[in-house]
């Protein structure tokens, strides 16, 4: 399973490097969304609002949706699906591989958007640095859940509009845990409750993915 996972992750990242969708489309989108949210807050609030953490995770949620869709689209074309099916890869391995690749991409974008929120929204640098571990765990949970929901909503051929409807209720607790631990980190020390929520969510989605990804995959 692990070997397949690494193989699939390597493939996804290589496709990303070659097609540069992340670098030239998703990253700019992330930063632009942050700028827009700053504008939305209005001039006097943008600089010193306590909404920094909330906006960060809202932007990361939108970025995650784009990436989940992208992660499924590359598998989507019928020629690809048929030929990959004849490789008979272990579905759990495929799930872990794709989730891992998605997590790495989300981490990269997350760091960039985090830096953006420190620069643009003046959220405290030290606090944001302290919040980084919790950000990484939440983004990993988003990647695991996202890969699962990507397959659920049609795996690349289904309508892209289905993904948000299905995934938002599941992303809600991750958003809450993320925002709370980030803003607590700004005031010094996150409460352990948020670590419980994010770690449990991560483990749960990885477990469900390993168990049930195969059910979703073979059409």
């Amino acid at each position, binding site marked *: 399973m692990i070997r397949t996972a690494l193989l699939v992750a390597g493939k996804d990242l290589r496709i990303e490097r070659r097609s540069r969708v992340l670098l030239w489309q998703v990253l700019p989108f992330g930063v632009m969304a942050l700028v827009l949210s700053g504008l939305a807050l209005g001039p006097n609030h943008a600089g010193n609002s306590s909404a920094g953490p909330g906006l960060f995770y809202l932007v990361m949620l939108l970025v995650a949706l784009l990436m989940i869709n992208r992660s499924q689209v590359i598998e989507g074309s019928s020629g690809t699906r048929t030929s990959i099916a004849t490789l008979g890869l272990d579905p759990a391995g495929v799930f872990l591989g794709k989730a891992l690749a998605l997590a790495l991409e989300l981490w990269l974008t997350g760091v960039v958007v985090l830096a953006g929120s420190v620069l643009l929204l003046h959220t405290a640098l030290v606090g944001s640095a302290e919040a980084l571990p919790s950000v990484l765990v939440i983004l990993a949970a988003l990647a695991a859940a996202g890969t699962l929901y990507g397959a*659920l909503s049609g795996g690349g051929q289904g309508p892209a509009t*289905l993904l948000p*409807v299905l995934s*938002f*209720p599941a992303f809600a*607790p991750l958003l*809450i*845990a993320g925002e709370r631990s980030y803003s607590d980190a700004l005031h010094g020390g996150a409460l352990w409750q948020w670590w419980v*929520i994010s770690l449990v969510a991560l483990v749960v989605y990885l477990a*469900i993915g390993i168990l049930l990804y195969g059910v979703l995959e073979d059409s």
Partner: protein
Amino acid sequence: MIKQLSQRLLGPVTLVLLALTFWLGLWVTPPDRVQGNLVRLLYVHPAIAWVALYVSFGTSVIASSLYLWRRTRSVVMDRVASCAMEVSAVFLALTLITGSIWGRPTWGVWWAWDARLTSTAILLVFALGYLALRRANDDPELRARRSAVFAIIAAINVPIDHFSVDWWHTLHQGATVFTENGNFLVHGSMLWTLFLSLFAFTLLFFWLLRARYRLEVQRDARYAASLDEALAQRRREGVH
């Protein structure tokens, strides 16, 4: 014989019990010292919430997991799961509505970010997501598999949602922590009416589930008939 009897009696018994609950709830039981007649919602809201969160959602999740398990996989399980989820969507919406009606006079607002209200709302979005997923797939087998997986994910999210919303709502930086004593003292006739309402609404759920299930059976029968027709027509293609 018992099966037919219970089948035929389910509807009437449910109606009688519901009527009894409303009669007791509205006239016989006394008003509350603080809330006056508003407390009569006590005989509706908890019962609907109980059915929505545990009975209907539970039925759907159990049926879905049975569907996923190879040995108990059958069309019946898929139908029960989808019908139960549809009914639970209705009950979840009713829970929110009756909850807001009750909350309005006490909180002064229709919607307060109360922990229970918010996690019920998240569950309602899950149920609607489930129905959207079922509409998005028209291949019966694929649809059944995907909605079963989604129901399992929704079930496991219930505790996650509950606690994340609960802590989000009540947590402060360095809040004092002690267990809440949720003793539920209801007096005399109010208590009996409450239990009656729980029972009556649970029966209502099964009655609605059965009605919806029968509709689904007919729909599947029509679908199967269209399949046979398509099969026959396809075979004729090969003959000329």
